[in-house]
């Protein structure tokens, strides 16, 4: 069943969280389903100064997939995005319900920097892939001078 409120969209929402320290390559995040409702997409389009009302912008799907993952991942403030790969497979109509699956592809821990590579796959209700992506994020290391 789709979550009416996209995971992580509500500030202060309580959910089971996993920390960077607990993550290992291959770890799979709990799958998350969400509805790409017209109100959600309108809000997104306003934020990115975009247009269109029939199909969901693929970057909106990617952004919400990241949010769905971050809803169960406890990252330190100051975490930033280093790189992003995305592949779009099909048009997604506004109002569709999609399912997001994510896993840890790589984890790098160096003295001054911690990095995570996350792989994300998004499917529609027919279990057909609509999007795949890989995000590399850099986490601040306490006590290190960047």
């Amino acid at each position, binding site marked *: 069943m789709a979550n009416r409120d996209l995971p992580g969209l509500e500030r202060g929402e309580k959910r089971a969280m996993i920390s960077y320290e607990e993550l290992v390559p291959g770890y799979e995040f709990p799958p998350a389903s969400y509805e790409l409702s017209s109100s959600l997409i309108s809000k997104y389009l306003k934020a990115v*100064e975009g247009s269109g009302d029939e199909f969901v912008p693929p*970057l909106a799907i990617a952004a919400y997939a990241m949010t769905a993952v971050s809803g169960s991942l406890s990252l330190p403030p100051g975490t930033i995005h280093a790189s*992003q790969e995305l592949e779009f497979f099909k048009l997604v109509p506004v109002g569709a319900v999609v399912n997001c699956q994510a896993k840890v592809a790589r984890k790098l821990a160096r003295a001054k920097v911690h990095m995570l590579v996350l792989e994300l796959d998004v499917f529609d209700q027919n279990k057909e892939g609509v999007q795949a992506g890989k995000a590399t994020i850099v986490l601040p290391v306490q006590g290190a001078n960047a």
Partner: protein
Amino acid sequence: MLSEICEGKTLPQVVKHITQEKINLYAEASGDFNPIHVDESFAAQTPLGGTIAHGMLILAYASEMMTLAFGQSWLSGGKLSARFKAPTRPGDIVTVSGKIDSIEHKNGISYANCSLECCNQKDETIIVGGAVVKLLGGKS
């Protein structure tokens, strides 16, 4: 959309003025309230020295350029690879540009290989990347 898809063709530029208000709006829309984006006092204490825009916001502008150029071909058969080279800050003017580097034909399908770049008003590169578009109907 592009009237002609050929090697060397430049893609329609997208220019955006970044403000803290727009960053906050994107945080609200995406659910990403990382304080590096929305908390000016927190961000001032980090090595970045202030708030920065979400990388996915700037990538959305890159995707806008690709949609302007290729329409539904991009939405249903696009592939994007991007590296964030520098932060985008409130007050920055971001210009997204790109061009078709080559057209490939594989198994009866045409693909446009594009390079793209996002720069700020100081001509600093914010994002560098590439995109591949599966061209529908042999054109777009």
